[in-house]
């Protein structure tokens, strides 16, 4: 520790070089942070589906394939199922020429509060949802994006059903992305009025009483419909979301490859500077050894120099990444729908802190060889050569 001032001063030996090296490392670290954050956005979505007792049942053929509405009652009767509701994709658009801007679903009012107890929605709001036939719950992201308030009335024209419905917003869903939910009964009535038959559902979401019973319950549900017309596939919500974004796995691999390349970059930047600055000082280092400094001490202080510079750069880089992520979050989220949650650009403290440590270790790694070589040089030989 008492050598810290010496280490620090040595970085100030060539301030321009130290600055340029630190700046290069900082930017590379910022880049690594941003890149690593992208898959983290996906992980966050997966983690948010933490409810480990909520399961989904869909047609084995795909979620665009429907199932008979009668399935719901059967699922509700399975022991272990506390509550179950159905989902139907409404595909409603505010402006038909712009198409569907956010997901919207017709759901059963009965059981919604139990299945989605973790939505963070006030029980009073759930009450209102049941009370008003035309009630709608809206996910936070969409709620804020359109600047809606509780009590607002909005109209959606369906792109799958031949109806247009008006909804009264009764509340916001804080933890949900941006979907809108309304009563299935409301849709059923409108379709009946239009003379359209409506006895199917898209998906069933159920809550199981006990996490340990989830496996058996899922199997029981699928067995129940095994020989029916529409074969079902039941999985946990986490698995469902994981599968939904499974296509992104390959992109994540490529992003990780690139992040690794950039990290390698940092090694080269740090190693270059370390070797340059140490090479210049062979005479001085020889004097220090002459005075009595042991080679371990010399080695440690030289290593500390590289590590310290990289550490400072890492902190600067993480701070830069933080600022940039905030900006990206504001302007680039949802850009490139091909990437889904990869463009959430969340700010992950874990990743930022890891980046600082990565920088530090890279500095140590990069400085190792030049520092080792310099500490081992024979004093007498150096004095002979230099003088």
């Amino acid at each position, binding site marked *: 520790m*008492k*050598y810290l*001032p*010496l280490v620090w*001063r*040595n970085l*100030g*030996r060539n301030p321009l070089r130290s600055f340029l090296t630190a700046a290069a490392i900082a930017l590379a670290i910022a880049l690594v942070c941003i890149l690593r954050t992208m898959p983290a956005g996906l992980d966050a979505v997966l983690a948010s589906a933490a409810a480990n007792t909520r399961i989904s049942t869909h047609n084995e053929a795909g979620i665009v394939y429907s199932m008979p509405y009668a399935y719901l009652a059967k699922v509700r009767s399975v022991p272990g199922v506390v509550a179950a509701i159905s989902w139907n994709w409404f595909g409603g658009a505010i402006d038909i020429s712009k198409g569907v801007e956010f997901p919207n679903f017709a759901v059963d009012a009965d059981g919604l509060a139990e299945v989605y107890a973790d939505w963070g929605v006030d029980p009073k709001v759930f009450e209102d949802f049941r009370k008003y036939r035309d009630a709608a719950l809206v996910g936070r992201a969409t709620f804020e994006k359109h600047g809606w308030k509780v009590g607002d009335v909005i109209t959606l024209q369906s792109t799958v059903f031949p109806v247009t419905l008006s909804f009264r917003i009764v509340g916001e869903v804080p933890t949900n992305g941006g979907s809108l939910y309304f009563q299935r009964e409301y849709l059923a009535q409108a379709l009946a009025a239009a003379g359209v038959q409506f006895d199917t559902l898209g998906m069933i979401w159920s809550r199981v009483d006990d996490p340990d019973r989830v496996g058996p319950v899922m199997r029981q549900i699928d067995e129940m419909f095994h020989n029916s017309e529409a074969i079902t596939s039941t999985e946990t919500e986490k698995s469902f979301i994981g599968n939904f974004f499974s296509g992104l796995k390959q992109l994540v691999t490529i992003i990780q490859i690139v992040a690794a390349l950039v990290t390698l970059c940092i090694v080269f930047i740090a190693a270059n500077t370390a070797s340059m600055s140490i090479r210049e000082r062979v*005479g*001085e280092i*020889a*004097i*220090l*050894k*002459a*005075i*009595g*400094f*042991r*080679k371990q001490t010399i080695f440690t202080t030289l290593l500390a120099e590289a590590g310290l510079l990289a550490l400072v750069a890492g902190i600067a880089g993480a701070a830069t990444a933080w600022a940039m992520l905030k900006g990206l979050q504001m302007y680039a989220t949802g850009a490139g729908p091909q990437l889904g949650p990869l463009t959430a650009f969340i700010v992950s403290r874990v990743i930022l802190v890891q980046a600082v440590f990565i920088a530090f270790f890279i500095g140590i790694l990069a400085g190792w060889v030049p520092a080792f070589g310099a500490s081992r040089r*024979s*004093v*007498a*030989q150096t*004095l*002979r050569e*230099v*003088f």
Partner: protein
Amino acid sequence: MIDLVNVSRLYHRGADEIHALERVSLHVDRGRFVALMGPSGSGKSTLLNALAGLDRPNSGEVTVAGKRLNEMSEDELAAFRAHTVGFVFQFFNLIPVLSAVENVELPLLLTNLSKAERRQRAETALRVVGLSDRADHRPRELSGGEQQRVAIARSIVTDAELIVADEPTGDLDAKNAEEILSLLQTLRRDFGKTVVIVTHDPRAEKWVDEVIHLDKGILLEKRPGGAARGAAGATG
């Protein structure tokens, strides 16, 4: 104080074999001011390195201040140098990013003294060489002579018994050279240090107790220097 017996040192430069020292034996009493002189390549620097514990001879025995250097490991030699020897070189003496007083303090980092104690000793040493007012200056702000004086201050800050200096006046003009040599003599006279210098400078002869001539790695002659003969002019 210093005893070298049949010391030989051989090293390789590229494909050549250089016989730097050939069975050199030397004895220096405590408290003497000695100059090692000779042409380029005579082995004087190698001899200095050997008695300062900087380099190991290939054969022969080196005993300094009662310690047998041949038997010491590298770390033990480092510790020996830290406590027993003070160094002054021709170039690169001072760390450019540290101030004068910080440079003087440097060897004290190897001790257990507190920060305050280190600073105090360093300031005292600077006083001895007459540079107290330049304590906070960086080396590039000091003249060549001043830099050497700081180096000398550093060499005494640990109370080393032996001071070695390799061409301490090599880069200096006449006036500064005289000042440095006078200072070195003071170390021996007032502080009882043993001082061994390597030099080309014939002016050094009048300041030292003994002059040792080397050539081609062999000790040629020893004769008393100006100080031993009680020559005048060396007042300070």
